[in-house]
Protein backbone atom coordinates (compact mmCIF):
# COMPACT_ATOMS: atom_id res chain seq x y z
CA UNK A 1 0.00 0.00 0.00
CA UNK A 2 2.78 2.37 1.00
CA UNK A 3 4.63 1.47 -2.15
CA UNK A 4 1.61 2.36 -4.28
CA UNK A 5 1.23 5.71 -2.57
CA UNK A 6 4.89 6.52 -3.11
CA UNK A 7 4.63 5.51 -6.75
CA UNK A 8 1.49 7.63 -7.24
CA UNK A 9 3.18 10.64 -5.62
CA UNK A 10 6.22 10.07 -7.84
CA UNK A 11 4.07 9.93 -10.98
CA UNK A 12 2.17 13.09 -10.02
CA UNK A 13 5.49 14.86 -9.34
CA UNK A 14 6.85 13.70 -12.71
CA UNK A 15 3.73 14.88 -14.54
CA UNK A 16 3.90 18.24 -12.75
CA UNK A 17 7.56 18.62 -13.68
CA UNK A 18 6.82 17.81 -17.33
CA UNK A 19 3.94 20.27 -17.42
CA UNK A 20 6.12 22.93 -15.81
CA UNK A 21 8.90 22.36 -18.32
CA UNK A 22 6.52 22.39 -21.27
CA UNK A 23 4.64 25.53 -20.26
CA UNK A 24 4.62 28.25 -22.92
CA UNK A 25 7.35 30.72 -22.15
CA UNK A 26 7.37 34.29 -23.34
CA UNK A 27 10.17 34.86 -25.83
CA UNK A 28 12.29 37.89 -25.03
CA UNK A 29 13.03 40.61 -27.58
CA UNK A 30 16.69 39.55 -27.76
CA UNK A 31 15.69 35.96 -28.43
CA UNK A 32 13.39 37.08 -31.23
CA UNK A 33 16.17 39.18 -32.76
CA UNK A 34 18.45 36.12 -32.58
CA UNK A 35 15.77 33.90 -34.16
CA UNK A 36 15.23 36.26 -37.10
CA UNK A 37 18.88 37.10 -37.71
CA UNK A 38 19.80 33.41 -37.60
CA UNK A 39 17.42 32.79 -40.50
CA UNK A 40 18.50 35.80 -42.55
CA UNK A 41 21.46 35.52 -44.90
CA UNK A 42 24.15 38.19 -44.80
CA UNK A 43 24.10 39.54 -48.41
CA UNK A 44 27.83 40.30 -48.52
CA UNK A 45 29.07 37.09 -46.88
CA UNK A 46 29.62 33.51 -47.99
CA UNK A 47 26.88 31.43 -46.37
CA UNK A 48 26.85 33.33 -43.09
CA UNK A 49 23.76 34.39 -41.21
CA UNK A 50 23.19 37.99 -40.22
CA UNK A 51 23.60 36.88 -36.60
CA UNK A 52 27.00 35.30 -37.20
CA UNK A 53 28.47 37.90 -39.52
CA UNK A 54 30.60 40.79 -38.27
CA UNK A 55 30.18 42.83 -41.46
CA UNK A 56 28.76 46.34 -41.45
CA UNK A 57 25.88 45.17 -43.66
CA UNK A 58 24.92 42.49 -41.12
CA UNK A 59 25.17 45.02 -38.30
CA UNK A 60 22.77 47.35 -40.10
CA UNK A 61 20.39 44.47 -40.78
CA UNK A 62 20.47 43.48 -37.10
CA UNK A 63 19.64 47.08 -36.18
CA UNK A 64 16.68 47.08 -38.57
CA UNK A 65 15.43 43.78 -37.13
CA UNK A 66 15.84 45.09 -33.58
CA UNK A 67 13.93 48.23 -34.47
CA UNK A 68 11.14 46.16 -35.99
CA UNK A 69 10.90 44.06 -32.82
CA UNK A 70 10.79 47.22 -30.69
CA UNK A 71 8.01 48.60 -32.90
CA UNK A 72 5.95 45.48 -32.15
CA UNK A 73 6.18 43.88 -35.60
CA UNK A 74 5.87 40.10 -35.81
CA UNK A 75 8.75 37.91 -37.01
CA UNK A 76 6.85 37.26 -40.23
CA UNK A 77 6.36 40.98 -40.86
CA UNK A 78 10.05 41.74 -40.37
CA UNK A 79 11.11 38.83 -42.55
CA UNK A 80 8.60 39.87 -45.22
CA UNK A 81 10.33 43.25 -45.56
CA UNK A 82 13.62 41.57 -46.43
CA UNK A 83 11.89 39.02 -48.67
CA UNK A 84 10.22 41.84 -50.61
CA UNK A 85 13.65 43.26 -51.44
CA UNK A 86 15.80 40.16 -51.86
CA UNK A 87 13.33 37.33 -52.51
CA UNK A 88 13.59 33.95 -50.80
CA UNK A 89 17.37 34.06 -51.35
CA UNK A 90 17.68 36.16 -48.21
CA UNK A 91 16.79 33.12 -46.09
CA UNK A 92 19.51 30.59 -45.37
CA UNK A 93 16.87 27.83 -45.44
CA UNK A 94 14.46 28.20 -48.36
CA UNK A 95 10.83 28.35 -47.19
CA UNK A 96 8.93 25.11 -47.90
CA UNK A 97 5.93 27.05 -49.23
CA UNK A 98 7.81 28.61 -52.15
CA UNK A 99 9.62 27.22 -55.22
CA UNK A 100 12.67 27.05 -53.00
CA UNK A 101 10.82 24.35 -51.09
CA UNK A 102 11.74 22.01 -53.95
CA UNK A 103 15.16 21.91 -52.34
CA UNK A 104 13.54 20.00 -49.49
CA UNK A 105 11.03 17.98 -51.49
CA UNK A 106 13.17 16.77 -54.39
CA UNK A 107 15.65 14.74 -52.28
CA UNK A 108 12.73 13.06 -50.49
CA UNK A 109 11.04 12.29 -53.81
CA UNK A 110 14.29 10.99 -55.31
CA UNK A 111 14.90 8.84 -52.22
CA UNK A 112 11.37 7.43 -52.43
CA UNK A 113 11.78 6.68 -56.14
CA UNK A 114 15.12 5.02 -55.43
CA UNK A 115 13.62 2.83 -52.70
CA UNK A 116 10.78 1.79 -55.02
CA UNK A 117 13.20 1.06 -57.87
CA UNK A 118 15.60 -1.00 -55.72
CA UNK A 119 12.81 -2.92 -53.98
CA UNK A 120 11.29 -3.68 -57.40
CA UNK A 121 14.62 -5.02 -58.65
CA UNK A 122 15.16 -7.10 -55.51
CA UNK A 123 11.71 -8.62 -55.78
CA UNK A 124 12.47 -9.67 -59.31
CA UNK A 125 15.81 -11.23 -58.28
CA UNK A 126 14.30 -13.07 -55.31
CA UNK A 127 11.27 -14.40 -57.13
CA UNK A 128 12.21 -15.18 -60.72
CA UNK A 129 9.41 -16.03 -63.05
CA UNK A 130 8.88 -19.85 -63.09
CA UNK A 131 10.45 -21.22 -66.19
CA UNK A 132 9.03 -24.66 -67.10
CA UNK A 133 9.31 -26.85 -70.16
CA UNK A 134 6.96 -26.01 -72.99
CA UNK A 135 4.19 -28.36 -74.09
CA UNK A 136 6.19 -29.82 -77.03
CA UNK A 137 9.17 -30.36 -74.69
CA UNK A 138 6.94 -32.20 -72.20
CA UNK A 139 5.52 -34.33 -75.00
CA UNK A 140 9.03 -35.16 -76.24
CA UNK A 141 10.16 -36.05 -72.72
CA UNK A 142 7.16 -38.32 -72.20
CA UNK A 143 7.83 -40.01 -75.50
CA UNK A 144 11.50 -40.53 -74.58
CA UNK A 145 10.64 -41.97 -71.14
CA UNK A 146 8.13 -44.30 -72.74
CA UNK A 147 10.75 -45.42 -75.27
CA UNK A 148 13.34 -46.07 -72.59
CA UNK A 149 10.84 -47.98 -70.45
CA UNK A 150 9.89 -50.09 -73.47
CA UNK A 151 13.55 -50.72 -74.24
CA UNK A 152 14.22 -51.84 -70.68
CA UNK A 153 11.42 -54.20 -71.13
Amino acid sequence: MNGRVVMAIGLVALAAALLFAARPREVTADERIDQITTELRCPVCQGLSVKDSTSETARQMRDIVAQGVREGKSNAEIEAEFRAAYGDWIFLSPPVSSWGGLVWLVPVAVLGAGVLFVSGRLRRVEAPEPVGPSAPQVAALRERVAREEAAEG
Partner: protein
Amino acid sequence: MMLARIVRIAAVVAILGLVVTLALAFRRDPHDIRTGTIGKPAPAFALDRLDGSGKVALADLSGKVVVMNFFASWCLPCTQENPVLVRVYERYRASDVVMVGVNYQESRDNGLAYVQRMGMGWTTVADDDGRVAFSYGVFGPPETFFIGTDGIIAGRHIGPIDEETLVTAIEKLRGQAASR
Protein backbone atom coordinates in the same frame (compact mmCIF):
# COMPACT_ATOMS: atom_id res chain seq x y z
CA MET B 1 8.17 -3.80 -64.66
CA MET B 2 5.85 -0.82 -65.15
CA LEU B 3 7.14 0.80 -61.96
CA ALA B 4 10.76 0.45 -63.04
CA ARG B 5 9.89 2.09 -66.34
CA ILE B 6 8.20 5.02 -64.57
CA VAL B 7 11.21 5.45 -62.28
CA ARG B 8 13.55 5.38 -65.26
CA ILE B 9 11.51 8.03 -67.07
CA ALA B 10 11.36 10.13 -63.90
CA ALA B 11 15.14 9.93 -63.55
CA VAL B 12 15.64 11.07 -67.15
CA VAL B 13 13.20 13.96 -66.65
CA ALA B 14 14.96 14.98 -63.42
CA ILE B 15 18.39 14.97 -65.09
CA LEU B 16 17.05 16.96 -68.06
CA GLY B 17 15.49 19.45 -65.64
CA LEU B 18 18.80 19.85 -63.84
CA VAL B 19 20.65 20.40 -67.12
CA VAL B 20 18.13 23.02 -68.31
CA THR B 21 18.23 24.80 -64.94
CA LEU B 22 22.02 24.93 -64.96
CA ALA B 23 22.08 26.09 -68.58
CA LEU B 24 19.66 28.93 -67.83
CA ALA B 25 21.58 29.89 -64.69
CA PHE B 26 24.89 30.10 -66.56
CA ARG B 27 23.33 32.19 -69.31
CA ARG B 28 22.27 34.94 -66.90
CA ASP B 29 24.30 38.10 -66.63
CA PRO B 30 25.61 38.27 -63.04
CA HIS B 31 25.25 42.06 -63.19
CA ASP B 32 21.54 41.73 -63.78
CA ILE B 33 20.37 39.74 -60.78
CA ARG B 34 16.61 39.81 -60.58
CA THR B 35 15.65 40.09 -56.97
CA GLY B 36 12.35 40.98 -55.41
CA THR B 37 12.23 44.65 -56.35
CA ILE B 38 12.44 44.50 -60.15
CA GLY B 39 9.11 45.24 -61.77
CA LYS B 40 7.67 46.59 -58.54
CA PRO B 41 7.07 50.14 -57.34
CA ALA B 42 10.29 51.71 -56.14
CA PRO B 43 10.30 51.83 -52.32
CA ALA B 44 9.60 55.36 -51.12
CA PHE B 45 12.29 57.28 -49.30
CA ALA B 46 13.04 60.71 -47.92
CA LEU B 47 16.74 61.15 -47.24
CA ASP B 48 18.90 64.10 -46.22
CA ARG B 49 21.08 65.63 -48.90
CA LEU B 50 24.74 65.03 -48.21
CA ASP B 51 25.43 68.77 -48.31
CA GLY B 52 22.78 69.34 -45.64
CA SER B 53 20.53 71.44 -47.87
CA GLY B 54 17.30 69.63 -47.05
CA LYS B 55 15.71 66.34 -47.97
CA VAL B 56 15.06 64.49 -51.20
CA ALA B 57 12.01 62.27 -51.46
CA LEU B 58 11.28 59.85 -54.26
CA ALA B 59 7.77 61.25 -54.39
CA ASP B 60 9.27 64.59 -55.48
CA LEU B 61 10.75 62.90 -58.54
CA SER B 62 7.47 61.46 -59.75
CA GLY B 63 7.06 61.47 -63.54
CA LYS B 64 10.81 61.48 -64.19
CA VAL B 65 13.26 58.80 -65.14
CA VAL B 66 15.32 58.22 -62.00
CA VAL B 67 18.76 56.66 -61.95
CA MET B 68 19.64 55.69 -58.39
CA ASN B 69 23.27 54.88 -57.80
CA PHE B 70 24.44 53.46 -54.47
CA PHE B 71 28.04 54.46 -53.80
CA ALA B 72 30.69 54.90 -51.12
CA SER B 73 34.14 56.47 -51.06
CA TRP B 74 35.68 53.24 -49.73
CA CYS B 75 34.36 51.35 -52.74
CA LEU B 76 37.02 51.13 -55.47
CA PRO B 77 34.62 50.07 -58.26
CA CYS B 78 32.57 53.20 -57.44
CA THR B 79 35.63 55.32 -58.17
CA GLN B 80 36.17 53.39 -61.40
CA GLU B 81 32.63 53.96 -62.67
CA ASN B 82 32.43 57.61 -61.60
CA PRO B 83 33.75 59.14 -64.88
CA VAL B 84 30.92 57.33 -66.70
CA LEU B 85 28.36 58.74 -64.29
CA VAL B 86 29.78 62.24 -64.70
CA ARG B 87 29.58 62.04 -68.51
CA VAL B 88 26.04 60.65 -68.50
CA TYR B 89 24.94 63.24 -65.96
CA GLU B 90 26.26 66.02 -68.17
CA ARG B 91 24.46 64.51 -71.14
CA TYR B 92 21.06 64.37 -69.43
CA ARG B 93 21.24 67.14 -66.83
CA ALA B 94 18.85 69.38 -68.78
CA SER B 95 16.38 66.60 -69.44
CA ASP B 96 13.71 64.65 -67.57
CA VAL B 97 16.34 62.27 -66.21
CA VAL B 98 17.29 62.62 -62.56
CA MET B 99 20.37 61.03 -61.06
CA VAL B 100 20.43 60.36 -57.35
CA GLY B 101 23.56 59.14 -55.62
CA VAL B 102 22.87 57.30 -52.38
CA ASN B 103 25.85 57.28 -50.04
CA TYR B 104 26.08 53.88 -48.39
CA GLN B 105 27.67 52.74 -45.12
CA GLU B 106 29.72 55.85 -44.64
CA SER B 107 29.88 59.00 -42.56
CA ARG B 108 28.35 62.05 -44.18
CA ASP B 109 31.64 63.95 -43.97
CA ASN B 110 33.51 61.29 -45.89
CA GLY B 111 30.66 60.97 -48.39
CA LEU B 112 30.51 64.72 -49.02
CA ALA B 113 34.28 65.01 -49.39
CA TYR B 114 34.19 62.21 -51.97
CA VAL B 115 31.33 63.83 -53.88
CA GLN B 116 33.22 67.12 -54.09
CA ARG B 117 36.50 65.45 -54.99
CA MET B 118 34.93 63.35 -57.76
CA GLY B 119 32.93 66.18 -59.32
CA MET B 120 29.53 64.59 -58.71
CA GLY B 121 27.14 67.39 -59.59
CA TRP B 122 23.96 65.35 -59.24
CA THR B 123 21.80 64.98 -56.15
CA THR B 124 23.48 62.95 -53.44
CA VAL B 125 21.81 61.75 -50.27
CA ALA B 126 22.84 59.92 -47.09
CA ASP B 127 21.38 56.51 -46.26
CA ASP B 128 22.76 56.50 -42.72
CA ASP B 129 21.17 53.29 -41.42
CA GLY B 130 21.12 51.45 -44.75
CA ARG B 131 17.35 51.12 -44.61
CA VAL B 132 16.80 52.44 -48.14
CA ALA B 133 19.54 50.21 -49.53
CA PHE B 134 17.95 47.16 -47.91
CA SER B 135 14.50 48.12 -49.17
CA TYR B 136 15.91 48.11 -52.72
CA GLY B 137 17.71 44.80 -52.17
CA VAL B 138 21.21 46.21 -52.48
CA PHE B 139 24.06 43.73 -52.08
CA GLY B 140 26.85 46.29 -52.02
CA PRO B 141 28.06 49.37 -53.89
CA PRO B 142 28.15 50.20 -56.65
CA GLU B 143 24.63 49.32 -57.67
CA THR B 144 22.44 51.26 -60.06
CA PHE B 145 18.65 51.11 -60.25
CA PHE B 146 16.54 52.42 -63.12
CA ILE B 147 13.11 53.73 -62.19
CA GLY B 148 10.61 54.61 -64.90
CA THR B 149 8.28 57.58 -64.98
CA ASP B 150 5.60 55.24 -63.63
CA GLY B 151 7.64 54.73 -60.47
CA ILE B 152 8.38 51.08 -61.26
CA ILE B 153 11.90 49.70 -60.93
CA ALA B 154 12.68 48.64 -64.48
CA GLY B 155 16.17 47.28 -63.92
CA ARG B 156 19.30 47.20 -61.87
CA HIS B 157 22.99 46.84 -62.49
CA ILE B 158 25.31 45.35 -59.93
CA GLY B 159 28.93 46.46 -60.04
CA PRO B 160 30.57 49.28 -62.00
CA ILE B 161 28.43 50.33 -64.92
CA ASP B 162 29.62 51.24 -68.40
CA GLU B 163 28.34 54.13 -70.47
CA GLU B 164 26.54 52.02 -73.05
CA THR B 165 24.56 50.08 -70.45
CA LEU B 166 23.67 53.25 -68.60
CA VAL B 167 22.57 55.19 -71.69
CA THR B 168 20.67 52.21 -73.14
CA ALA B 169 18.69 51.76 -69.93
CA ILE B 170 17.90 55.48 -69.70
CA GLU B 171 16.86 55.74 -73.35
CA LYS B 172 14.63 52.70 -73.01
CA LEU B 173 12.77 54.30 -70.11
CA ARG B 174 12.55 57.64 -71.90
CA GLY B 175 11.14 55.86 -74.95
CA GLN B 176 8.54 54.11 -72.80
CA ALA B 177 7.60 57.41 -71.18
CA ALA B 178 7.23 59.10 -74.57
CA SER B 179 4.97 56.34 -75.88
CA ARG B 180 2.55 56.61 -72.95
